[in-house]
């Protein structure tokens, strides 16, 4: 009927839209880079120092430094180490956080017991845990991962809890009257109903893990390995006074975060087909 032809048209519009979004994205990045370059060169060309941006090495210098850095194994090892820590902390946070959030949502005794301590621990910034966790965990590596885990954990739990609690009671009632047991309700209503919130929690949590892992690497000196992670890469570049390399590190983090959140969005897209038509 009319509906199906409309859907087809929507599909076309959507591909056009994403194409346009891509072009807009590229356009805005190019404009940004040009302004940055001009801002830096202003002093050389016209003798006027542009505040702030005039002191930051221009994109051309950063690119030149980057093209050297990419041939150093330490740089890639940093990527590898940071990604490993983020991935590990994030996965453990998911594995623990989702069940804890769901349990708090469906069981009032569990919620009564665990919500107050959870809420007391939650405002403590993950970085405040660094000294304690260095003492507590046998290796620096583990303590960095622990802090990373904490970064994502609270956000994941809060999102899952909120998502599961806001499921419309009519879905539960409808399922109940069709013969659903408690386990069915959990498996067939609460779990799929919470999925969107799980992915929101994952996306936000992933952002926090990147923030936390870098700071943790800076504080702890990046562990025993050479390279030491992207956070340590920035810190040691700063200590060595190589400013353009600091920026290389900063942009690398930006890219790493973008890759991670894109992955989460993609998995969300795959696992929630009913959210796809918009």
């Amino acid at each position, binding site marked *: *009927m009319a*509906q*199906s032809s409309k*859907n087809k048209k929507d599909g076309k519009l959507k591909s056009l839209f994403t194409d346009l979004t891509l072009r807009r994205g590229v356009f805005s990045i190019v404009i940004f880079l040009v302004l940055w370059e001009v801002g830096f060169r202003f002093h050389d060309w016209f003798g006027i120092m542009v505040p702030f941006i005039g002191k930051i090495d221009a994109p051309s210098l950063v690119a030149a430094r980057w093209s050297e850095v990419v041939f150093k194994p330490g740089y890639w090892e940093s990527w590898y180490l940071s990604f490993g820590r983020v991935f590990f902390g994030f996965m453990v946070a998911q594995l623990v956080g989702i069940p804890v959030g769901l349990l708090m949502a469906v069981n009032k005794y569990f919620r009564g017991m665990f919500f107050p301590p959870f809420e007391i621990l939650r405002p403590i910034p993950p970085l405040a845990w660094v000294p304690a966790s260095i003492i507590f965990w046998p290796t620096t590596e583990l303590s960095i991962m622990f802090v990373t885990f904490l970064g994502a954990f609270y956000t994941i739990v809060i999102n899952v809890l909120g998502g599961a609690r806001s499921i*419309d009671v*009519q*879905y539960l*009632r*409808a*399922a*109940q*009257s*069709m*013969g*659903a047991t408690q386990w*069915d309700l959990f498996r*067939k*209503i609460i779990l*799929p*109903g919470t*999925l969107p919130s799980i992915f929101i929690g994952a996306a936000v949590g992933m952002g926090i893990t990147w923030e936390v892992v870098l700071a943790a690497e800076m504080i702890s000196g990046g562990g025993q390995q050479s390279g030491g992670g992207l956070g340590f890469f920035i810190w040691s570049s700063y200590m060595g006074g190589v400013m353009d390399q600091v920026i290389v590190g900063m942009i690398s983090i930006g890219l790493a975060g973008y890759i991670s959140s894109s992955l989460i969005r993609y998995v969300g897209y795959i696992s*929630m*087909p*009913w959210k796809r*038509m918009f």
Partner: protein
Amino acid sequence: MNQPDVMILDNVSKAFGEDWERETVVEKLSLTVKRNQLTAIVGPSGCGKSTIVNLLAGFELPDEGTITLDGKPVTGPSKNSLVVFQETALMPWLTTYQNVVFGPELRGDMPKNELKAAADKIIETVGLREFRDKYPLQLSGGMQRRAELARALINQPVVMIMDEPFRGLDAMTRQLMQEFYLRLCEQESRTNVFVTSELEEAIILADSIVVLSNKPASVREVLQIDLPRPRNLDMLSSPEAYEYKRQAMEILHEEAMKSFSGTGTNSDFLEAYSRMG
């Protein structure tokens, strides 16, 4: 199993809230739902219709009195008294087909190929064949209600409880749904409870109309609707239908007035309101 009274509510009362602020929503309500008939329940808004639905479906249990379904007391939700909800309660993460087979699959009381055939047939009946594999959000409001009807029908409930099922639809879709529902009921007889706040909807669909009092809800009057079947929406302009409407309006009007009485300050409004009736 085949006595004419399927559901019997006997002196049912239900109150909510803690002791010191307990509010009675349903008081000494008695009614019977006859087999293979459509019993409509109408009442002033806020009179406790939703509570009655919850009691019929077993989501709530009465404080006093008894509710029996086919002779057995109702002790909780069951597939024998299914509700089609006000706003759609289709699971958004399931397609039309998946929603329809949800109940039988859960209980595993139908062989797989039989279930598939039955589901496809019911989806066909409600006119959603092309939308079998669409998600609820891809359906229009009217289609969602039909999908939900299909989901209830496949479970072959003893009583189907419709809780203002066409509320929120635009006037045109609402009429179409009423006609569709009339045909559906007349093709195959089912036992239905149809809760609505639209009097005309009740008159055209129902075999009998239970008119409720103001809160706390109890039965004010039961009107037998003897319009011939098959019916159509044009019958609403017949003198018989008009007479039913007049009778029911009179009672509803009285009940509506009660909620204003005692305040005294609203006399002008009340007068205007009664002239309107």
